[in-house]
């Protein structure tokens, strides 16, 4: 009989041992969650929004965006000041003397040269390499290295030892090539001169992007070496581990357990550490949308940075109900120009007020395949802009936004969310049946669209397919759009649902007719959205090829006068949203946050949706000034005081 207990005793022993050996993280001042696990903490490699959000806590670039100001202005970061030459191509950054790495070493101009060189290497496959190629010589450097690598892999070698040695030599040669041709000069430790190949009016915006933040060379270079077979620089993981990572931002990495949690501690060597009102941040990995909301309700979380639970539409509806109950006060506060989070804080405490729908710097749209022929070789009716216009007019965007999404998102008639980029005037876009003020106006739009189809000889029995990927409710949106087209244009439709990888492959290979898509801007310039429609752009899934559009973007890139430049870009956007319609903008995204406005302050309501979590102050704790931080208007004196 006792023998039978042996497996049980073994199991008990196992459980006991592992429970004892596992320690949870100590509590933190601020606990927030991202919607998924961090992929990388290497700034030059990242592109996911949650990675960037986390990286902004750990690293700091030359400059930063003032996310709490209405105009998202550029304020000093590691650079305390900068000048731009009269021809608009040479920036001289003066780095502050007290900017330090978390190990106490000073941040120097060499650190930026090293880090940006990393991003410019084809080896690293930085998702944002194109942004770096604005720098003089960068494109040549990239191409040179790429050609060398290709040649290397075709060459034959005497022995593997010889091959390896050659790979190392090529790497050393590459480093001196960079010094030779790329326009980044370290005048001294604290003066960095950057020469662009042509004026880039939004270059400071790029510098504020965390992909342009520096990494610590003595550490990172230890983990990079040429692959003996391909000579590509291989990036070994390891330097982003807790206690190993050396960074220059407001926080340092104290713990990171895969799929479990990440813990950050205030960086005692950060130059502006006194402005940080929290000492520690815990980021548990709660990726299940429902579990995140439940955990918030038990009080385990302070902020959910992206609520994706299927019932979030109801949460937003409850919030609107709450605002409705206090309509008078809300109207009064809005008239005073207060931002939404401040208004929420001034209203009485209510659990419904913890949900916040914040407009995002992104747009949901439908792609048209613009190629002359469909994948099966038949002529593609969508190659005709008239057909695309007709289909775009007959998507009931309002019902998609209000009845399917239910997050209070604004319908979109442009690709770039209006009002998100200072000084830029959005075009009007095509009239849409959802926006029609009356039934007559609606019918007029439908008639117009049907006429367009007739003019274009749209084939009668043609079946329009809508491709989308599983999950996230794309199926419901596709159904609504298909219904609009069936009803108003009398066309047959077919829904095509696929796994994300297959869906993406189909887009890339243009194996589709119409397909869902979305795009989020990276920096505060219209090109962050418009570039994806440039004929040769890698993200031009539509195979859209317009000489006029391309030439407008080209002209804009040469235009020195920012006002004229924005006019050119606005005209380019007008072409794609009023005439050619390679895509149908459906709505501008909102991100749903959960936090208690009476407890958390320092989050931004700016439509660029970039949060710098180190600005957060937990009200009524014993750290920081515990003062609410409302959004500041351009004319606020406090802003003028901090401007360079």
């Amino acid at each position, binding site marked *: 009989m006792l023998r*039978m207990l042996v497996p049980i005793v073994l199991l008990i022993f196992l459980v006991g041992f592992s429970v004892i050996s596992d320690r949870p993280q100590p509590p933190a001042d601020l606990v927030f969650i991202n919607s998924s696990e961090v992929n990388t903490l290497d700034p030059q490699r990242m592109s996911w929004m949650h990675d960037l959000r986390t990286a902004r806590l750990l690293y700091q670039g030359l400059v930063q965006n003032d996310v709490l100001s209405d105009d998202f202005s550029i304020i000093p970061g590691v650079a305390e000041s900068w000048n731009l030459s009269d021809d608009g191509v040479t920036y001289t950054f003066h780095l502050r003397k007290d900017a330090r790495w978390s190990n106490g070493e000073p941040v120097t101009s060499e650190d930026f040269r090293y880090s940006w060189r990393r991003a410019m290497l084809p080896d690293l496959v930085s998702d944002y390499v194109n942004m770096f190629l604005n720098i003089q010589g960068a494109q040549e450097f990239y191409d040179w290295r790429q050609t060398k690598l290709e040649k290397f892999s075709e060459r034959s070698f005497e022995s593997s*030892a010889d091959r*390896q040695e050659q790979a190392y030599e090529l790497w050393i040669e590459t480093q001196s090539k960079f010094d030779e041709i790329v326009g980044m000069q370290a005048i001294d430790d604290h003066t960095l001169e950057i020469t662009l190949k042509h004026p880039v009016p939004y270059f400071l915006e790029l510098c504020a992007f965390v992909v342009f933040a520096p990494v610590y060379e003595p550490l990172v270079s*230890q983990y990079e070496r040429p*692959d003996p077979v*391909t000579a590509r620089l291989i990036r070994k993981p390891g330097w982003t581990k807790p206690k190993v990572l050396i960074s220059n931002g407001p926080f340092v990495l104290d713990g990171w357990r*895969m799929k479990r949690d990440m813990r950050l501690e205030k960086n005692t060597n950060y130059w502006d550490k006194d402005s940080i009102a929290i000492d520690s941040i815990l980021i548990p990995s709660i990726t299940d949308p429902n579990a995140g909301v*439940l955990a918030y309700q*038990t009080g385990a979380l302070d902020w959910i940075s992206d609520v994706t639970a299927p019932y979030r539409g109801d949460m937003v509806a409850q919030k609107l109900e709450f605002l409705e109950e206090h309509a008078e006060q809300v109207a009064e506060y809005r008239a005073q120009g207060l931002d939404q989070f401040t208004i929420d804080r001034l209203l009485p405490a209510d659990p419904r007020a913890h949900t916040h729908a914040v407009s995002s710097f992104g747009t949901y749209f439908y792609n048209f395949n613009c190629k002359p022929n469909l994948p099966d070789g038949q002529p593609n009716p969508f190659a005709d802009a008239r057909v695309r216009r007709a289909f775009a007019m007959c998507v009931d965007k309002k019902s998609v936004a209000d009845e399917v999404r239910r997050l209070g998102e604004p319908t979109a008639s442009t690709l770039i969310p209006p009002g998100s980029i200072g000084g830029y005037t959005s075009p009007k876009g095509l009239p849409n049946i959802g926006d029609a003020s009356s039934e007559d106006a609606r019918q007029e739009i439908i008639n117009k669209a049907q006429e367009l189809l007739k003019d274009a000889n749209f084939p009668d029995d043609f079946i329009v397919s809508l491709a989308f990927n599983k999950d996230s409710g794309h199926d419901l949106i596709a159904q609504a759009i298909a219904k609009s087209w069936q009803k108003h244009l009398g066309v047959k439709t077919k829904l095509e649902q696929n796994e994300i990888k297959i869906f*993406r492959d189909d887009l890339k290979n243009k194996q589709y007719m119409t397909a869902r898509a979305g795009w989020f801007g990276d920096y505060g310039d219209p090109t962050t959205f418009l570039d994806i429609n440039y004929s040769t752009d890698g993200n031009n899934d539509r195979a859209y090829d317009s000489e006029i559009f391309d030439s407008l973007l080209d002209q804009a890139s040469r235009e020195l006068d920012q006002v004229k430049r924005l006019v050119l870009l606005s005209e380019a956007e007008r072409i794609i949203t009023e005439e050619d319609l390679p895509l149908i903008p459906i709505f501008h995204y909102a991100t749903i946050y959960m936090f208690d406005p009476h407890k958390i302050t320092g989050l931004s309501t700016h439509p660029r949706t970039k949060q710098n979590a180190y600005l957060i102050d937990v009200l009524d704790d014993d750290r920081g000034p515990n003062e609410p931080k409302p959004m500041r208007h351009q004319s606020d004196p406090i802003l003028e005081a901090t401007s360079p």
Partner: protein
Amino acid sequence: MMTIILRRLLALPIILLIVYSITLTLAWAVPGNPLENPEKRPKPEVIEQMNKQYNLDSFPRFYVSYLSNATGYQYAKDYFSGQMKRERELSEQLGVPVPARPIFDFGPSLKYDDATVNEIIRDTLPVSVTLGASAILIALFIGVGAGVIGAVKPNSFLDLSTLAVSMIGISLPGFVIGTVMLLVFAINLDWFPIGQWGTPRSIVLPAITLSLPFAAYIARLTRMGMIDALGADYIRTARAKGAAEYSVLLKHALKNAFLPVLSFLGPATAMAMTGSFVIERVFTVPGMGEHFVNAVQNKDLFLIIGVVLVFATMLIVFNLVVDVLYRWVDPRIV
């Protein structure tokens, strides 16, 4: 006994090789390029070079290189051929230290840039093992208890109700039970935390949820075995000699009835300990189960093979352990 252990251990690498071949073939056939970030595509020539670097451009090359890295063959080869020494010298020339290199290298994760597959398994497997072991323990207590009760008075109300409960345990999916448990015990009653793995309290809910299907199966096995045993001659003999009822049940009958449960425990433990995607999602347990699903979706080849090999090894080892225990508990089996 020794021969059986030896034979199984010898078969282990062969089975693993077969599992590896099948897994890789299937994973290779999954469409999509694992190196592509869907939103920002690198240039085709860069992709080509990366494919070359990871041997993703040729199935046979990948097959051989992964195998030689994962088995430690490459490590041994580089060690004895002097390659490692050369690498060290070159690093010294460049003035950088040589990064540590594991003997059994399962490769990089293509999705999680900052982690190797070895690290992912190292971080997540202990969590899954803890949870799985607790679940199997709970399943044993519930299952054997319910089975014995049911067998003592077959077709009584008590029997039928335990049967009904075990049917529910088998049929209800984990995410339903899990969500209900969370709502009742974590939100309404506030007895257990949500989303904080690491304290004994946080193991309770996921372990119970994970245990239910196993418990149900064990209950049915025990009940069946007990009913069989209670009708046997040696039980009548035991009762005739005046043994107490509890001793008849637990000592004489259960000993035989437990054997099928024991053989079920092998695969069940391996299954429970390698994690469950659903349970991990619902209770935010940082275990290995998620990778069985997500790695395939991301076409993270190295990670897929890594977790499958771990699972296969555990399955074989636990079956072996059970076989050994089996013979030890019941010496009639040779």
